[in-house]
């Protein structure tokens, strides 16, 4: 086995990609930058979704709750006159606390019931953001101080996305990650072998909520306006799930490949087709469910390639230590 390339290649790849992305604004137009910005947003969401949904095997359909919460909290703090850094921290802190609180009751649900329960989380948020008009501006949405931050937010989003990927890579190789995989396989046995499962499940949700809420804050800073359907709607709720599943859950490359494919589809198809966006999602989900539960990463064409580069599916916990 080429253990050497396995540990050296990923960091090099990450550095190369980062370098290219940083230099990119000099060479390409704003259209491409906007596209990459959105890609980074989706990628962050998909990769952070995968920590709970893929590594731990709890399908969290309400992952976008953290995105929306982070966006709203950041927007509100910005409007109170605080600088961006503070606002982002506030957004992350609020949604991490929220994640910790709801994790206790929600993780008492298992399997499909958990998925459905987390779905309820979104509708709760939508109702809250619609009704707490003083704070959120209600259904009219909320605007932040205007200004063109497209370049800065491009960098921030790209950095967040890369950081999320690196975090999930390290997580998969950590003892904590090993426990999450074990919980996915058999939670009761994991507990019987000393894993404090309740605590770890909560922790996993909190960890997953951090990148999602951060990118939510960056998003609102860039677009300067959000409304309840924009951040708590079905499309944004399902995109991380679909991306992670399309690419392949529980893997590092899965969310990446999924995010690129889906944003491309959006770009190509949806700009021409005003209707049936949700139908496309729906049909795609049905097809993945029926024919490709492992996602693209585990499909015949991509698997050998990805395994070669050392970004394949297993934790390889033992190889590192």
């Amino acid at each position, binding site marked *: 086995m080429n253990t050497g390339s396995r540990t050296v290649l990923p960091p090099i790849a990450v550095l190369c990609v980062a370098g290219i992305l940083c230099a990119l604004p000099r060479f390409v137009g704003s259209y491409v930058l906007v596209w990459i910005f959105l890609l980074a947003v989706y990628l962050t969401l998909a990769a952070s979704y995968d920590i709970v949904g893929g590594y731990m*095997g709890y*399908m969290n*359909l309400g992952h976008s709750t953290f995105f929306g919460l982070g966006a709203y909290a950041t927007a509100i703090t910005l409007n109170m006159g605080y600088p961006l850094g503070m606002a982002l921290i506030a957004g992350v802190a609020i949604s991490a606390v929220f994640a910790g609180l*709801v994790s*206790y*009751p*929600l993780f*008492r*649900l298992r*399997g*499909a*019931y958990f*998925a*459905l*329960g987390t*779905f*309820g*989380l979104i*509708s*709760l948020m939508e*109702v*809250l953001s*619609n*009704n707490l008009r003083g704070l959120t501006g209600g259904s009219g949405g909320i605007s932040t101080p205007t200004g063109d931050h497209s370049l800065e937010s491009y960098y921030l989003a790209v950095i967040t996305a890369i950081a999320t990927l690196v975090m999930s890579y390290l997580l998969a190789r950590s003892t904590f990650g090993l426990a999450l995989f074990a919980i*996915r*396989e058999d939670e009761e046995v994991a507990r019987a072998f000393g894993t404090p499962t309740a605590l770890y499940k909560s922790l996993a949700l909190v960890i997953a909520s951090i990148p999602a809420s951060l990118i939510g804050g960056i998003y609102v800073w860039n677009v300067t306006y959000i409304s309840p359907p924009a951040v708590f709607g*079905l499309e944004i709720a*399902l995109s991380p799930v679909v991306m992670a*599943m399309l690419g392949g*859950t529980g893997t590092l490359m899965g969310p990446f490949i999924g995010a690129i494919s889906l944003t491309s589809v959006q770009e190509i198809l949806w700009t021409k087709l005003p*209707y*049936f*966006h*949700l*139908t496309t*999602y*729906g*049909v*795609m*989900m*049905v*097809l*993945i*469910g*029926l024919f490709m*539960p492992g996602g693209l990463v585990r499909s015949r064409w991509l698997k050998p390639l990805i395994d070669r580069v050392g970004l394949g599916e297993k934790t390889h916990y033992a190889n590192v230590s």
Partner: protein
Amino acid sequence: MLGGIYGLAAFGLSVSFGVLNVLNLAHGEFLMIGSLAGYAAFVHLNMNPFVSAVLVIPLFVMIGVGFYLLLIRPVTDKPLHELLVASILITLGASLAIEDLTSFFWKRPVTGIDYTLAPLQVGEVVISSLRLLVLLFICILAIVLQVYLKKTFVGRAIRAITQSREGAKIVGVPISRISALTFGLGVALAASAGIFYVTLFTVTPVIGIPLTVKYLCVVVLGGLGSLVGSVVGGLILGLAEAFTAYYLGTEWSPCIAFVLLIAILIIRPSGLFGVRE
């Protein structure tokens, strides 16, 4: 009132989960389609909603069986974890597609069937006799259902599979056929609940998914797999929504189901009628 409707549909959900291990996230969509069908039957064919509520059952059993054979059957033999993921993707995806397509073709909301009966007056109190009738009808349906599950072969088979899949297989219960039938039954229950729904409330194509979340609340509230639990859970949710709408305003009632769900999970995760552990 609304509680009875919730209970009926939610029971459909939990029965098919018990037998199939598949939670049908498109369940609410079938209520929505049922409503629209009932509405269409009323407007175009002038059909009494109670009649269509009965007629719709065999029709939707067939639709449900078709749905099962086409989309669920191919994945039922997978290991549990994969089945879970696949079934969520498939039923949720179907649900999205149904919702999106329906709202494309059915632009305006359906504001209740214009079917009224003379109100009933008991002393000072005026009771809408339509509501009373709907309630009565739901009770009858619930009783028929209970008897069906207790007495008939299919009913017994359903309960047997719910208790032990392996055991039922050994005794020779035709699991696959019963599964299809159960799924159909669940769908039909949702659809016929939908017809009552449209006699009382506004229906739009987007109500499906929020409704499915409400069923979850009802099912957890009442305890998994218990018909009595589902009906009581439904009643509680209906009441809670009415109270919320009254005291806080209607805009708050959509989230009460979730709040109830969280509360029951903290206080008594097994539900009101569930067995502990």
